[in-house]
């Protein structure tokens, strides 16, 4: 039996007995970032495919939310900072080694792009909208003409943003639960699934909902595969990773993870969506809201559990 204790006494707030330095702000931000990334990706994807008139909610309506989603996410990030007045230091350096460093630059780029995208569609959503200044009208005309050109960088940056929400965690070698490269793709797919849910909620067109429903089922299957893959990788890993996996496979996170994320957040909504495609009447709000809640809880659990896992020595 090996027992370790602090002979000198040590009870540092948020560090002991186990790390808990990141609270609700980070998982909420990861959720919002993934959601925004997914919406922007779908908007640019269907624009590039030339389907913007068939996918009204995807291309025109949902992206109007994105600047607000991103700003709320950034606000949460700001709340997380303990030395808030120095936040501008993020933008005085470019540090490619630091995921948080390049992530903040990606946000700096994609937020204005999403604002420009929304601006080009704002008149379609609000016909009485008036830009007031001539220059703004000129910019709008240019944006409308060049939507396809904007769509390409937007799609690429959306994917980077979606993956970044996972890499932010996976870059920490010291936290075995996070230290797996599958986390980037997993968070990307999960973010896209939550975006599909929001689009389905906003869409009034049955055909569009059907397309997004099909995409969402596929995304959920991929996500479930990634989750299995995540735990398979851990169980074949070192002791600290096996311990990390066991938090979810019998440990204290098992019940919330399987109940709210896997069953209520993924499998059940996917089954409902399949029923809807088969022609049964399912109110779309049920699977969509379940996916959103599942996605949010998933990030909360990952951030909370990851901080508990650590190296043994």
């Amino acid at each position, binding site marked *: 039996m090996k*027992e370790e204790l602090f002979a000198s006494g040590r009870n540092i707030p948020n560090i002991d007995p186990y790390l808990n330095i*990141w609270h609700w702000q980070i998982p909420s931000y990861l959720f919002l970032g993934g959601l925004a990334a997914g919406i922007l990706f779908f908007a640019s994807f269907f624009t590039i495919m030339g389907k913007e008139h068939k996918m009204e909610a995807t291309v025109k309506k949902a992206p109007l939310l994105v600047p607000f989603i991103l700003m709320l996410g950034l606000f949460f990030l700001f709340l997380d900072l*303990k030395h808030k007045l120095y936040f501008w230091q993020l933008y*005085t*350096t470019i540090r490619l080694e*630091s995921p948080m460093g390049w992530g903040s630059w990606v946000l700096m780029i994609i937020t204005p792009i999403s604002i420009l995208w929304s601006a080009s569609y704002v008149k379609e959503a609000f016909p009485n909208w008036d830009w007031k200044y001539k220059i703004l009208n000129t910019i709008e005309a240019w944006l409308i003409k060049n939507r396809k050109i904007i769509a390409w960088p937007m799609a690429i940056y959306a994917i980077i943003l979606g993956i970044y929400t996972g890499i932010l965690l996976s870059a920490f070698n010291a936290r075995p639960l996070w230290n797996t490269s599958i986390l980037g793709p997993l968070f990307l797919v999960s973010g896209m699934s939550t975006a599909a849910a929001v689009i389905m909620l906003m869409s009034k067109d049955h055909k569009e909902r059907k397309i997004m429903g099909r995409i969402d089922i596929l995304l959920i299957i991929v996500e479930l595969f990634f989750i299995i893959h995540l735990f398979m990788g851990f169980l074949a890993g070192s002791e600290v990773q096996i311990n990390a996996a066991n938090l979810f496979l019998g440990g204290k996170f098992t019940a919330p993870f399987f109940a709210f994320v896997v069953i209520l957040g993924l499998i059940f909504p996917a089954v409902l969506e399949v029923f809807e495609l088969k022609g049964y009447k399912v109110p779309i709000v049920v699977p969509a809201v379940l996916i959103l809640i599942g996605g949010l809880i998933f990030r909360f659990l990952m951030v909370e559990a990851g901080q508990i896992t650590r190296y043994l020595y």
Partner: protein
Amino acid sequence: MRYAMAIDTRKCVGCSDCVVACQTENNVPVGFCRDWVVEVVDGTYPNVSIELRTERCNHCDNSPCVRCCPTGASHFEDGGIVLVDHDKCIGCGACIQACPYDARYSHPDGYVDKCTFCIHRVREGKNPACVSVCPTSCMNFGDLDDPNSKIVNVLKNRKFKSLAPEAGTKPQIFYLI
């Protein structure tokens, strides 16, 4: 120049003098500490072994905290000492997550704080506060690149280990066993 520490776990009595000396020298706020003493008990009586060791930032060669810092606040000083520039730190907590040794904490003033190897004393040619007060002289601080230094000599003649080398951080605090 490469500063490092070699700590003799067989001499340490766990008195915590190093902890108090550090807190006094560096004005560490009450309730926090930059170094601490761990007692590892292995086995049950009568087959029991105890290891006492004083721990702190390992000033790693491959520091995950320096790598993940988004503003460059965590950086290397001469001799490989890892420092936090308070005016650049935004308090995001990334370095705290990145440290396998939980050697960093969030200072009540907002920035992240940790052991500095008492760089202000080292620059004056003195030992870090913890080393200088140790009643059993279990800590050796010095330059690994200086073949005549005591630390090089100690590491040559004794078996030693470092903490969680599998984390790939190349820690620069060595424990003589």
